[in-house]
């Protein structure tokens, strides 16, 4: 069956390292827990239904009680006109400093007409009569429209991140063959090349690389040959995580945002790419990654396939696996 190939969580010395494992877990838990400490006194509504479990629960509610939520003391404070229907949940952030307009408690609303509004949450008098800001994304020339027939613009609720910094740094750009290449692009391409060469060198030409390859083939024999299996496994995790981290940093720079789920799709695609490249074959994985990246972008830009970008990527993966089940550079 699967026989440990996918489910094998290879932590060195699982039996002896019980205490180590529990300590690591506890530390991780503490770190994650501290990151999530509510920093503001007022409760913000940053995503749909308050949290990622979509529960709708507000555990820090202090104002509303069963006695004061009734027809006489609870009701609409104000209403504001917008340009289309609202399918996404309105979000609320307190104490937002809006340049030139001071500090407000803000309600963010996205409409099906592809507009986003920011309203003051407390009153509509004086300077707050009009939205604090509003922006509309419709741009038919660039292909940004709403979906006919029922005008589907912004349908899903986003997640607001009060702590992510927004950098408006202009990176240097270069025009190459009619396409603008930014400094970030160069860094990514250059960095990736360097990493790949270094990795190839380590795997092929160092004793550590040899140990890693031996352990991958047959753990028992490697141990008997005097190879330190634990060290190899630790090295693999270390190197792999470091490379992935580099990738994550590059994505963050490229898209100017960090959020907890940014690695999900990349992870799934990565897993698929390993298989498509031919298990264990680094060159194959790189080739597969390039094929995927290029075809995904080409297909989503120039064709009308009724799927999202990620959907097309996954479709490509399925097709590639089926065409060559042993992987692009795998052996039959």
């Amino acid at each position, binding site marked *: 069956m699967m026989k440990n190939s996918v489910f094998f969580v290879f932590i060195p010395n699982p039996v002896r390292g019980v205490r180590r494992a529990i300590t690591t877990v506890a530390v991780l838990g503490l770190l994650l827990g501290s990151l999530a400490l509510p920093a503001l006194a007022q409760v913000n509504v940053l995503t749909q239904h308050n949290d990622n479990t979509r529960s709708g629960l507000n555990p820090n509610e202090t104002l509303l009680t069963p006695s004061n939520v009734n027809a006489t003391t609870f009701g609409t404070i104000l209403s504001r006109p917008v340009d289309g229907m609202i399918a996404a949940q309105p979000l609320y952030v307190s104490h937002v400093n809006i340049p030139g307009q001071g500090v407000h408690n803000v309600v963010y609303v996205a409409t099906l007409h592809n507009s986003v509004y920011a309203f003051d949450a407390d009153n509509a008098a004086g300077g707050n009569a009009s939205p604090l800001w509003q922006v509309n994304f419709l741009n038919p020339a660039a292909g940004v429209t709403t979906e006919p027939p029922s005008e*589907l613009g912004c349908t899903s609720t986003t997640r607001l991140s009060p702590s992510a910094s927004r950098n408006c740094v202009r990176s240097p750009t270069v025009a190459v063959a009619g396409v603008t290449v930014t400094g970030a692009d160069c860094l990514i391409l250059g960095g990736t090349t360097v990493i790949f060469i270094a990795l190839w060198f380590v795997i092929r030409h160092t004793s550590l690389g040899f140990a890693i390859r031996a352990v991958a083939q047959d753990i028992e024999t490697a141990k008997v040959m005097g190879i330190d299996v634990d060290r190899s496994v630790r090295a693999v995790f270390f190197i792999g995580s470091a490379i992935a981290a580099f990738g994550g940093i590059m994505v963050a720079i490229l898209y100017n945002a960090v959020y907890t789920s940014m690695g999900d799709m990349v992870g799934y695609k990565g897993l698929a790419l390993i298989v498509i490249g031919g298990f264990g074959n680094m060159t194959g994985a790189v080739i597969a990654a390039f094929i995927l990246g290029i075809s995904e972008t080409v297909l989503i830009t120039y064709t009308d396939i009724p799927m999202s970008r990620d*959907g097309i990527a996954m*479709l490509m993966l399925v097709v590639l*696996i089926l065409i060559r089940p042993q992987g692009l550079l795998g052996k039959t």
Partner: protein
Amino acid sequence: MLDAYVITILTLMGIWSVVALGLNVITGLAGQFNLGVGVYMGTGAYASAMLTTAAGFTFWEALPCAIAASACMGFLTGLPALRVREDSLAVLSIGLVFVFESLIIYLPYFGGPLGISRLPRATFAGEPATNQAYLLIVAGALVASIAATLYLRRSWMGLAWESIREDETAAQVLGIDPARYKLYAFTIGAAFAGLGGVLYAHFIRFVTPYDFGFLPSIYVLVMVVFGGLGTVRGAVFGACFLTLLPELFRFVQDYRNLIYGLTLVLLMLYQPRGLLGDGSYAWRAMRTGWTRLRAIRTTGRPYASNP
């Protein structure tokens, strides 16, 4: 009668148990690692949703059609699975579930990202079923699914599946055609999952593509593995326990995925057979207890005496 909250929890436990049983057939019995059971659940749910809203079918009329649709989907996804190696099967199923989710969102027939809503209630004794009556329907479906799966395990089909799971090459030289039995597994497992999907659709009465994507598929796999892959008791226990867990531990809401992941890691390290799997501590303790109990009743002593 029972509190409405309790009824909801029980109904969900039943629904996820049915889906878990379906995945157990494909992955547990036949050893075909499948990370995309959402495809089959979604096919059943959407088929029933479309038939009952657009085509005017009743719940009971739509049920067999939806199950047949899921079974077909199982067959269709089983065909590519024949071509790939064991290790690639996981990735193939991931790809398929994402493709499925994406198509459902973007093709015009399925209601897009907003899904299909206002599904009619099932009819029970002539009237639209109350939640309590629906719980009885779900319980009935669960009992039927358990009985069917137990029977399959004892049938030749089950033995062929287990042979293929253990060693496909050895099974082949015994005259067992792996392709045929794998397709049977996919079809039958998908049918169960589709049944779960229909029950889900008419309980929530609102289906969206995101209900049947990658993450829900993983949750079902976790349920099956947690309980004990390949066993009926494991699938049902895992589904019930992991549906109940978020309710019992509401205070860890934001860390639900952390807890899930952690549980899975710890489980794989210390009880890789699942909590109620064949080799697990809990199951062996239960069996020893049962043997001792029987011994006490027959011989008056808890341990057999050795000559």
